[in-house]
């Protein structure tokens, strides 16, 4: 269940992304077949993602996505409080865009199924081109309905409802510069903690000096995020993109995320490089160790809620093997793409308990992960 919530909502981005920037024009017909591999911190996740988009008639475009995560986890959380596990999640998404004049209306549905987690999400968005197609305004809404279970307790069942409200503005600024501003509010209500997670507290009666008890999160969370992105066409044929996001929520997490990327075509090749930096404060109920059992009303030790910084360096290459002038049968264009990302996360208040260090002298945990993506794309 640990990944379901994220992948459902991010796939909504996938369904809506193209129309966000191009209201007034339906997204191109294309198909993508991707293999992804994440390897880091004792966790290995891989699987396929297949995306197919097809226009039907003059004003309607359909999109479907099939995504699988095969997870093998012996993460720091698992090895300290549980047993390594494997599991699989399958996700289906369907979406439709309807174009009328300068307005694009989109609806989408996503279902994610796992042995102990079931998530359904419904989305609706409207994009409007304005001012001679220089400006695109997008309003979006999503409703999420999650059902949380436990693999070791068939009776355990909890619900979570999520609502997302988004406003996006994409603006052509000059003949070389385009920018987009996005604001998004997300509210959750229900069972928000992980049913398998524990917090630790000082316990003089324990040989380790501490014991564990289940974590307990608030039942609500509301977050606000504003993101600004700008892409600039350089004096030669290459692009530079900068992005910044500010995030804040009712759990007192506040973060700043910035990235810079460079894209450079060379014949049939397109090379890209990106650097991303993220810094956040911790949730108000997060502690690496609590002073005693049930020390606070709410308590958590998810390392993602700890103060942390993360950096990513990504490189990618794309090779166009079917020329978009000559084509190949019904295929207009085809590319093969490869990317590698090195992700490093430094936790400022999350100790590495896998070492034999005594209480109070444990080193802080550091996560290093390698992320690979290989995918084929064809346009038809």
């Amino acid at each position: 269940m640990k990944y379901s919530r994220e992948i459902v909502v991010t796939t909504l981005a996938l369904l809506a992304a193209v129309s966000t920037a191009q209201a007034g024009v339906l997204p191109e017909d294309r198909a993508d077949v991707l293999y992804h591999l994440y390897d880091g911190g004792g966790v290995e996740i891989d699987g396929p993602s297949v995306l197919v988009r097809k226009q039907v008639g003059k004003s309607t475009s359909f999109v479907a996505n099939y995504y699988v995560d095969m997870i093998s986890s012996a993460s720091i959380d698992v090895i300290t409080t549980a047993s390594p596990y494997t599991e699989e999640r399958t996700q289906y998404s369907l979406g439709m865009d309807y174009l009328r004049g300068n307005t694009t209306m989109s609806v989408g549905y996503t279902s994610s199924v796992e042995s102990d987690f079931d998530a359904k999400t419904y989305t609706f968005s409207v994009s409007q081109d304005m001012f001679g197609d220089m400006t695109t305004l997008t309003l979006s809404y999503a409703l999420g309905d999650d059902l949380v279970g436990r693999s070791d307790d068939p009776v355990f069942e909890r619900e979570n409802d999520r609502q997302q409200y988004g406003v996006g503005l994409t603006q052509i600024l000059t003949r070389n510069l385009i920018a987009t501003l996005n604001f998004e509010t997300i509210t959750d209500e229900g069972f928000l903690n992980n049913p398998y997670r524990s917090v630790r507290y000082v316990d003089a009666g324990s040989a380790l000096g501490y014991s564990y008890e289940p974590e307990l999160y608030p039942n609500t969370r509301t977050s606000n995020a504003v993101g600004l992105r700008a892409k600039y066409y350089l004096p030669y044929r290459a692009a530079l993109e900068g992005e910044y996001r500010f995030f804040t929520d009712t759990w007192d997490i506040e973060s700043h995320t910035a990235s810079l990327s460079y894209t450079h075509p060379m014949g049939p090749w397109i090379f890209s490089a990106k650097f991303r930096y993220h810094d956040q404060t911790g949730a108000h109920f997060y502690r690496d160790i609590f002073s005693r059992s049930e020390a606070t009303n709410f308590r958590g030790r998810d390392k993602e809620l700890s103060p942390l910084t993360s950096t990513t360096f990504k490189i990618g290459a794309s090779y166009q093997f079917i020329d978009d002038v000559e084509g190949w049968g019904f295929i207009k264009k085809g590319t093969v793409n490869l990317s590698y990302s090195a992700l490093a996360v430094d936790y400022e208040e999350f100790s590495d308990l896998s070492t034999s260090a005594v209480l109070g002298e444990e080193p802080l945990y550091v996560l290093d992960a390698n992320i690979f993506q290989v995918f084929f794309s064809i346009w038809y």
Partner: protein
Amino acid sequence: MNMKINAFSRFVLLAIATVVVSGCSGIEPWVKPYERDRLADPIMALDTDPVSSSYIQHVYEAREGARGGEGAAGGGCGCN
């Protein structure tokens, strides 16, 4: 404080309404359609490969506490 917020909200709504209404009467686009050849270059697409960007966005949302604000939908719960 609430009065200030309400007054500010009204101002923002009025400003948006003014822009939208004036848009109907036709603001001259300062970048003409024939001047958008560079912006139409595939390397200038804001989301070149949705299947890839969606995946990497999911990785971040699983590893970090923040969510959303990166275009269209977004989100996450901060799980591992």
